[in-house]
């Protein structure tokens, strides 16, 4: 899978005078897990909503699996959506609602599918429970379940772990990890650590404009830098800089050694091993090593 699943070209959305999304362009490749990042009011949910066909773009070209999501009925069976703030109809029992939604999607056995997705989100016991009686976390997982019904090729998840306790959030992340590769997944979230962990590529939006769109490796500079958390000992900075393939090195706040290297000329594992070996020889104690700049830093730098 390497074709373009979602294509946005110069897409804008205006609400009256306000430009919620302003000439945004990026592509999501098939099978990618793609993150939408940005501060509040950046235009993430508006972009997300246009991709799902909830909102109509004011201008620009938007295609999902080769079709315009604004056209009637074109997304049927092709996308699953977890909208951020859509309330599940409170009077429906969960099982009946999922069966109904499955029927609307044109699934051959909607009830069987409904039971299967409820199992998948670990909520089979809620089958007869009214949606209005579900806790926030349960409601979120039921909403997630409806997005997965029929195994659609594209899955949109808007803030999938917002408001969930850590255990449930971890299970949702595990579920998203399962989707990777088999489905194209677009995740909009404020949780940058989560996106860094899950996504193959990402777009950063700020004030409606696209600030950056790149693979996660490019975004975090994973091919060109790594960091070492030093516990104790003096870092031999000049010796590190002198190592083959090393471009630059500096000690940042909290005793973190940041090493820039030639991503094209040297393999990351080679330069990392050389640096760690040197530090060990100089009796520098190490707490951890990680590649690239943290996504959070990159986002803070860009927005």
């Amino acid at each position, binding site marked *: 899978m390497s074709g373009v699943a979602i294509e946005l070209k110069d897409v804008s959305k205006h609400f009256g005078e306000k430009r919620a999304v302003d000439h945004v362009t990026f592509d999501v490749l098939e099978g990618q897990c793609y993150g939408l990042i940005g501060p509040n009011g950046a235009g993430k949910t508006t972009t997300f909503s246009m991709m799902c066909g*909830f909102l109509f773009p004011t201008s620009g070209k938007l295609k999902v699996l080769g079709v315009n999501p604004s056209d*009637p009925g074109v997304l049927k069976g092709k*996308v699953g959506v977890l909208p951020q703030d859509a309330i599940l109809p409170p009077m429906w029992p969960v099982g009946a609602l999922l069966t*109904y939604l499955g029927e*609307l999607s044109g699934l051959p056995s909607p009830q069987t599918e409904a039971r299967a997705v409820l199992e998948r989100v670990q909520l089979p016991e809620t089958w007869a429970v009214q949606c209005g009686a579900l806790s926030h976390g349960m409601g979120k997982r039921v909403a997630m379940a409806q997005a997965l019904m029929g195994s659609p090729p594209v899955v949109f998840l808007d803030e999938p772990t917002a408001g969930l306790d850590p255990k449930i959030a971890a299970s949702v992340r595990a579920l998203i990890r399962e989707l990777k590769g088999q489905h194209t997944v677009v995740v909009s979230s404020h949780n940058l650590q989560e996106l860094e962990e899950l996504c193959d590529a990402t777009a950063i939006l700020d004030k409606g404009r696209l600030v950056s769109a790149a693979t996660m490796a490019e975004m975090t500079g994973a091919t060109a830098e790594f960091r070492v958390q030093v516990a104790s000992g003096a870092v031999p900075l000049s010796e590190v800089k002198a190592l083959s393939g090393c471009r630059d090195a500096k000690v940042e706040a909290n005793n973190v050694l940041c090493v820039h290297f030639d991503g094209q000329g040297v393999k990351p594992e080679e330069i990392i091993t050389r640096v760690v070996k040197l530090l060990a020889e100089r009796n520098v104690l190490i707490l951890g090593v990680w590649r690239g700049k943290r996504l959070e830093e990159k986002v803070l730098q860009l927005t």
Partner: protein
Amino acid sequence: MDDLKEIGAVWRGETTRALKTGRVVVLLVLFLLFVGLALMGVGLLANQVVAGAMKTAPGVDAEQVKQGLMAAKKQFLMQFFTDDERLADSLAALPLVLLVVFKLTLRFVPLLIALMGFDQVAGEVGPKSIRYLIVRVRRSSIIFGKFLSQATIFTLLLTVCTLVMVLVSKILNPEFSAGDMTVWTLKLVGSSVVLALAYLSLTALCSAVVRQGAVALVLNIIGLFVIWFLALVGEYFRFPGEAVAGQLDLIRADSWAAYLRYASVWHFGQDLLHPGWARFASAALVHLGFAALFLGLAQLALKRRDL
């Protein structure tokens, strides 16, 4: 074909949901209370009129009293319901209590429809639960499916209430034969369902253009008042004295204001009980036309809206 399947799926789901909620029961109770109250009031009044007629004419036999009452009924109908003699003749065959209560109920029907369906779309747009639907079905299927669901539920409610009216009328008027009962039940239910289609689609339209259910209800009531107002103004300016059965209403107008009544679906409601097929069919077509217009606008409004 896909469209029909989608509409069918929305219709089934929405009807099942509606029948399981308390709102239908509340509306049925409200409807029955209204019918019961009207039956009691009108029944009591009708009995007093009959008893009074018998008392004031002690020497006259029952058949003559009956004929006198029939003439009085017809006069009453010509005074308050219609200036069409054929229609008045036809309606005079009905027990007065059934006729009056049914007519009162029809006045109540547009409001009942508004109460029943004001939030059918708006109630899903506000909390955004409509987003679960629009990635699965066309927006037009949502409008038509929900409309059909409302029509189904309303037909059930109306049938129950009409049966109650007819049965009570039979008890109060033993001469009302079983054959007449069957025919008139079908006529009354049929005509009111056709009449209701226009108001059901008006409710769908009001619900499709706003985000809050309460606003949709207010808008719907305003719409009903506009419809009633246009019919009333048109009727007021209508040239009197040329009530020729079967004649086109257009030639009976002497003022442009009289034409306003044609903009109101309410004006055509009466002919739905007309014994002449042409009058009935044209009234039914007008109702279907208004229904198609309102539904078309509702569909257009939802199709173009950000949700």
